[in-house]
């Protein structure tokens, strides 16, 4: 290519939607960077300013910042050492609950968070910071791995993977969908140079938080949960979305001040995860008081993992309330009773929901209809319940037509027809008997 290419590039610049950058400044920075001694010196200085050691690997390097915090370190309402009690509580609790640390020691939990060069999920976005903490009897051991430039990913992943022997018990916030897939993507590029990615297990606190608090929080982000639930306030936090921009600046000019805020942000995220894990566990284990809505969600969670024994007493205590949660709990109990063959109890619960709920939905009616049809052979009541369900559905259909509701409608009509036939046969049989 020739000189005129450069001219053409300038010509098309406007159309390339690229803002005219302050080019002189760029040039200057670049020429400085060319001087590799200066650059090396600056990099070493940056590492010192971050209190990080530089680890070398295959001509590459990574900054590793290690820190030990006391067990008494306060994180919102908890101290880091409270994790021991929580883990020990789990030994008496559910073994299969997604948050359960059953069979684990507290120091096996790895609290994990990353910062990336962008939110997109493609191959062009990098992880430039991994924060990792675990709690031992001697204190909180915290490590942060910082990528000094894009060509150092082998060193970066090598350090992180060699240090952490097992990744079976990562605790993250949205790690399942965000952090871990990115780790896998980037690891793919250096897989020939660094250890394999070990199998990983996961406690994703986003899912837990969403379950318990999605109705009360405007958005279930870690910072919101910290502030609203744990009462944690951050001073001078650098918002996560600034991270890519600040990191790009650092690449041009390796000055630790530029990324100091992000590193602190990442550190606080990791510490918050410890407190959040303790708090969520305490809620699920019943160690701290929860309001009705939280208790209902906790019970429902147990129900979904098939732990009826833990779900039922929770629902039972809620079911005596007159609140909406109380009514919803009764509906849940009805399902539980039915599953265990206590049809009378199930029916009582459903009837109570139908009586007290201002507008019970079609599902409740249908459940009642099913019991009447299959368990009690009372076709007439089954028909009447189904008709109520149909009425409810039609009202809803009038407001907005949707396909699923349409399908339900025809299923309900079929049900009524079938019940009608059964009822007729029943009547005929009893006439014959007479």
């Amino acid at each position, binding site marked *: 290519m020739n000189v005129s290419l450069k001219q053409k590039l300038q010509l098309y610049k406007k159309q390339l939607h690229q803002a005219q950058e302050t080019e002189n400044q760029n040039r200057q920075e670049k020429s400085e960077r060319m001087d590799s001694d200066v650059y090396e010196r600056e990099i070493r200085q940056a590492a010192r300013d971050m209190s990080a050691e530089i680890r070398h690997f295959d001509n590459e390097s990574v900054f590793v910042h290690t820190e030990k915090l006391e067990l008494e370190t306060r994180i919102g309402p908890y101290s880091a050492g409270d994790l021991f009690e929580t883990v020990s509580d789990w030994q008496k609790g559910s073994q299969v609950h997604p948050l359960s640390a059953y069979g684990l020691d507290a120091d096996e939990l790895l609290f994990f968070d990353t910062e990336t060069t962008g939110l997109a999920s493609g191959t062009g976005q990098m992880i430039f910071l991994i924060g990792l903490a675990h709690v031992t009897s001697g204190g909180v051991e915290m490590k942060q791995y910082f990528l000094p430039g894009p060509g150092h990913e082998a060193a970066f992943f090598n350090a992180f993977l060699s240090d952490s022997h097992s990744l079976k018990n990562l605790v993250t916030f949205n790690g399942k969908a965000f952090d871990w897939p990115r780790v896998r993507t980037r690891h*793919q590029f250096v897989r020939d140079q660094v250890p394999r990615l070990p199998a990983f297990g996961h406690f994703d606190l986003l899912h837990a938080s969403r379950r318990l608090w999605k109705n009360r929080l405007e958005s279930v982000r870690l910072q919101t949960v910290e502030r609203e639930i744990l009462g944690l306030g951050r001073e001078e936090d650098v918002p996560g979305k600034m991270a890519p921009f600040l990191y790009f600046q650092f690449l041009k000019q390796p000055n630790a001040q530029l990324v100091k805020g992000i590193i602190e942000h990442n550190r606080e995220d990791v510490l918050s995860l410890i407190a959040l894990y303790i708090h969520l566990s305490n809620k699920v284990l019943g160690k701290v008081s929860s309001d009705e809505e939280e208790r209902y969600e906790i019970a429902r969670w147990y129900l979904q993992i098939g732990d009826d024994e833990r779900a039922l007493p929770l629902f039972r205590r809620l079911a005596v309330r007159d609140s909406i949660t109380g009514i919803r709990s009764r509906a849940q109990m009805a399902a539980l009773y039915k599953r265990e063959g206590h049809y009378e109890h199930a029916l009582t619960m459903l009837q109570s929901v139908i009586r007290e709920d201002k507008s019970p939905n079609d599902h409740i009616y249908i459940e009642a209809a099913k019991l009447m049809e299959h368990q009690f052979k009372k076709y007439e009541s089954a028909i009447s319940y189904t008709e109520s369900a149909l009425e409810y559905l039609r009202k809803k259909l009038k407001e907005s037509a949707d396909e699923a509701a349409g399908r339900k409608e025809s299923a309900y009509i079929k049900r009524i027809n079938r019940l009608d036939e059964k009822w007729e046969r029943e009547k005929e049989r009893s006439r014959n008997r007479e």
Partner: protein
Amino acid sequence: MKVRQSMADLLAMLKKDPNIVHWHTIPGREAASVSFPEKLDWRLRRALVERGIESLYVHQAEAFQTVLEGKNLVLVTPTASGKTLCYNLPVLQTVLSDPSSRALYLFPTKALAQDQKNEMEELINEIGVPLKSYTYDGDTAGDIRQKIRRAGQIVMTNPDMLHSSILPHHTKWVSLFENLKYIVIDELHTYRGVFGSHVANVIRRLERICSYYGSHPQFICTSATIANPRAHAEALTGRKMFLIDRNGAPSVRKHFLFYNPPVVNKQLNVREDEMLAVKNLAARFLKNGIQTIVFARSRLKVELLVSHLQEINSGREERAKICAYRGGYLPLERRRIEKGLRNGEIMGVVSTNALELGVDIGQLQVCIMTGYPGNMASVWQQAGRAGRRKEDAVIIMVASSNPLDQYMAGNPDYFFSRKPEEVRINPDNLMILIDHVKCSAYELPFKKGDTFGGQQADELCEFLSDEDVLHYQAGKWYWMNDAFPANEISLRSAVQDSFAIVDITDRGHVKVIGEMDRFGAMTMLYEDAIYIHQGRQYHVDELDLKERKAYIRRVNVNYYTDSDLAVQLDVLETDDHGLLPLAHSEKGYGDVSVRALPTVFKKIRFETLENIGWGRIHLPELEMHTNAAWISFSTDWLDRFGKDVFQGALVGLSHLLRHAAPLYVMCDQADLSVVPKIKAPHNELPTVFVYDKYPGGIGLSKKLYEAMPELLERAKEMAEGCGCESGCPSCIGFVNEGKAAKQALLHLLRER
């Protein structure tokens, strides 16, 4: 009782029609077959026999052989010649013998991939081995995507999906890229102009990724008849190609007719509107239950024809038997039409060139073209839609009054001996190139000295690093930006920046009925325009540029609207110039800036085409930098003929060039513009500009610059061959001082 006329009756009638100016019969052809190749896997052989195939056409066998020899292949295949077996056989053979092998199929549209998937599935079922072939597109459900990435042996997708979804996530597709043996590119000829230039770059990115994972796939391409299949395939893939253009498939006898509508106004040499002629011809076949496809060149014409043709039937159901098919419809609507054509529920279809592609609608008996479709490849693709079973097929090309159509109607020998056009792409268009270097750097960092499309990428990478998109470190450029570049780059300018067309007739049920690109929106969906969709008229209430939505409302009026553009043109740099064989003239080529502003629109009455009113268009200017070729004349001419006459001559020349240009480059009408300027800003001379309507240019005006002497010769023949005195649509159009202008132009083009 009305008696249905047979095809023979109708042909006899046409024989007597004085407007049929030429009747060309293409004899049928027997199949040229050979027995199955020795090497063909017995399971494949058995599957073919099960489907009633006992032998292969010669081109199929040759393709099989060539691919297994490891060569990259381009096949020229007319409509319905069994081309899919040409690539499916070698691919399946390889996958059967080594199940870890992978093949990637690229189709220009989702619909085509879907069709091919179904066909492939049938074949696989008969083979009886669980081979995994999948389509991967925007509709693919999330839960099976992972399975496709891991285990899909044959993945069928489109270039857009490859560009925005597969390549930027290549780490999820390791097993595909490590084992990729074949890349099949179907409908190669559709990858032309801007789109083709983009796709060539997507393939460059694909190649970089393959070599990163250590694979070196073979290409198998198929194309409609074009002049340069091998060169085009090589430009698109960057590989040396082996060409197969022998076709062994049989065909029925075809009658190819030219219909030239009668002159209705002797003075003005105005012919009957070709649309009217098409309508009458199509109606004759449709009324007699003969499935007919009508091709028209613009969306507007498609819509007008549908609404006219639907009038021959009464009753809702009957009307539904004739429908339109064009871009801008939603996929569901298109699927319904394709199915209706196959099962015979739909009798007639009016289409833009969307149906030129191998969409599986079976074949119809009659094909009518509204005017010359613009290039020979299209002629034969469209004609290929006619020819079902053993019956004779009829193809009628109805000439419009434009100069090129009239030239073809007057020179049928020229038409039938014409070679198909060249397909041009310019993968090194700077705008396009830089977009894909960005995407490619996102996918894999560039090392110093790395090439992209055969040339070093260093300078481009440096530019991008100055732009803060890449970061240079230790000999490599890394993507260092929080954006996802493929999302901002659309391969098809039509989709780029697209506007939703929202029907608000029923305020309670507002719905999106289609979409359109920005340029289209500004010229068709300005406020107070009458927009026609599926034969229905809509009034444009509002064009929201920010939200990119046009709000339209059903109306019933007796006019349509047509917009005028004011164009400002500046030459930025002259790359080349030279003399022409004409007196006092020169040609030039270079970079230009074009600023277009829609100014006014006219309201035109349907029946009489008279202008019944106008309105202003209030829209911002569109600006682009592109390439242009131009012809400048000495001001001596101006003095000799006077300003008015000479201006008329220039406008007339533009009219001719606009129509003659497609003889030299294969492009869509929308890809080129011709603008006359009585005083061009750069040299102050009377000048006619021809420019590529895409930022940065795509090589069309370059080719026209080279072919300028021939182009002008053709323009002269068109003007000379026309019987009118003072200009008509078939030569220079209606211009001021028409008689003198035409004479002046002839002087201009004759004087050496």
